[in-house]
């Protein structure tokens, strides 16, 4: 429990440092809802679904780019020195980065869950899209943290999104549950075997995310911090 508490404490500091960015992003779904409802007209279902799809992709991008940028920012600012000179392991520190990139997404998903019904999004469409977004974000956060060990922030974010999309390119016989989740996110709700896809997706994403995070920890433990000398 202690390691998680430490990671959460560090993540809280990181989130507070970037609070204006998070706030803006968390307000985004409300802004979109306001635009679609402007003038008292009820938007067409196709418009609403397209907006939800777009916002889900923004959500993934949010996780990828923040997860990719945090380590570099903290090394550049040297705030990492303040944390890692204390009884904090590299694993706990990467855990904090992971949490700081994933937790805003939870708020974002809550926002979408609240604004969706206001726009008349059907429950099926909404829970599938948000479920897929949450599961894929677990993986994206791990990929972004791993990529940020070697790549600059924006590139790390882009690489993690590209790697996340790889299952879409797999031939039909090789498709993973993740492929189904990506399809749900990009093309709307699935009606066939959706419970199986989500159940397998949860298992697959948790296992893969944990494995990717573990690889990141192993690499980070064997690397020097890149500190700018004064």
């Amino acid at each position, binding site marked *: 429990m*202690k390691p998680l508490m*430490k990671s959460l*404490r*560090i993540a809280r*500091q990181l989130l*507070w*440092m970037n609070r204006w960015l998070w706030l803006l992003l968390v307000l985004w779904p409300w802004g979109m809802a306001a635009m679609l409802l402007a003038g008292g007209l009820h938007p067409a279902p196709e418009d609403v679904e397209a907006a939800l799809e777009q916002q889900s992709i923004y959500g993934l991008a949010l996780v990828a780019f923040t997860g990719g940028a945090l380590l570099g920012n903290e090394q550049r*600012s*040297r*705030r990492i*020195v*303040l*944390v*890692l*000179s*204390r*009884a*904090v*392991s590299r694993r*706990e520190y990467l855990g904090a980065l992971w949490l700081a990139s994933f937790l805003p997404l939870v708020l974002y998903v809550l926002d979408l869950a609240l604004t969706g019904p206001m726009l008349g999004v059907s429950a099926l469409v909404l829970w599938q899209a948000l479920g897929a977004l949450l599961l894929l974000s677990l993986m994206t956060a791990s990929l972004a943290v791993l990529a940020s060990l070697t790549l600059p922030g924006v590139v790390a974010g882009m690489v993690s999104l590209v790697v996340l999309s790889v299952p879409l390119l797999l031939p039909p016989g090789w498709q993973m549950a993740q492929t189904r989740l990506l399809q749900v996110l990009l093309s709307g709700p699935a009606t066939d075997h959706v419970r199986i896809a989500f159940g397998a997706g949860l298992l697959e994403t948790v296992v893969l995310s944990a494995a990717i995070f573990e690889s990141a920890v192993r690499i980070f*433990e*064997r*690397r*020097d*911090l890149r*500190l700018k*000398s*004064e």
Partner: protein
Amino acid sequence: MPALVLDHVSKHFGKAEALNDVSFAVDAGQIVGLVGPNGAGKTTAMQIAVGFLLPSSGGGWLMGHRFGDAKARQLLGFVPDAPVFFAGNAFDSLRFAAQLQDVTPTREAMERVLTRVGLTEWKRDVRRFSRGMQQRLALAQALVHSPRMLILDEPASALDPQGVLEVRALLKELRAEGAAILLSSHQLSEVALVSDRIAILHEGRLLRYGQLDELIGSTEQVEMVLRSFTPDAEFVARWGEPNGAGAWRIPSKGTRDFLEDVWALGAELMSATPVRGDLTSLFLEWTGSEVRQ
């Protein structure tokens, strides 16, 4: 076991050699001063001890744990050369630092530490502090969990003279309480005043390591002033030219040979004054630096 041991530590950054086979130790109740010109490897040595950098070869122990082990840092207080902080006031900063060391300090304990380091401004956002105040706060963060080992990289570089005196007194108090302290500073006189042992680094190598008295003793000289004496070429070749005051500075162990040469040339000795070196002259002599006017 010493609180900190560097055991044949080398560090390379690509082809550049930052540290080469450096070994020394810091015992409990002892202050070791780490001095050297810019780029000598002081900060690299400290960053390896704290676990920010991995040694290319060799290794060491911090509080009985291998470098890099988070448990080792539980009893460590570290002040970096340029402290930075997250947002918040002095109490927020101290609480956060302490919590990362598995300590939850009371308000009174935090006030005591802040008072001890001479920080009187507690409520402002610490990122708006002057550099001197930030250095005091970094020192408070390093002390808030009562560490047994302190690694201080230029802890007083931004302090006014009064602040420097306060830090000196604080270091002596901490040593008396049994803390082991590794102190790096460019203020050689300060290092000399508080350190029990000195480690001189130059171009990544440990040139000297020992008690200040021993190190200074090894460079004792005598200043010889002669009357009615014009040195010949052979004398100059052996003892050099006189300095601006017409005197020769020679190693004290060479006094007898010098006097024999002087008497052989018929000169008269006016005075012989022992010249005791200080850390600055020692530092300049061993690092090959020249005093720049």
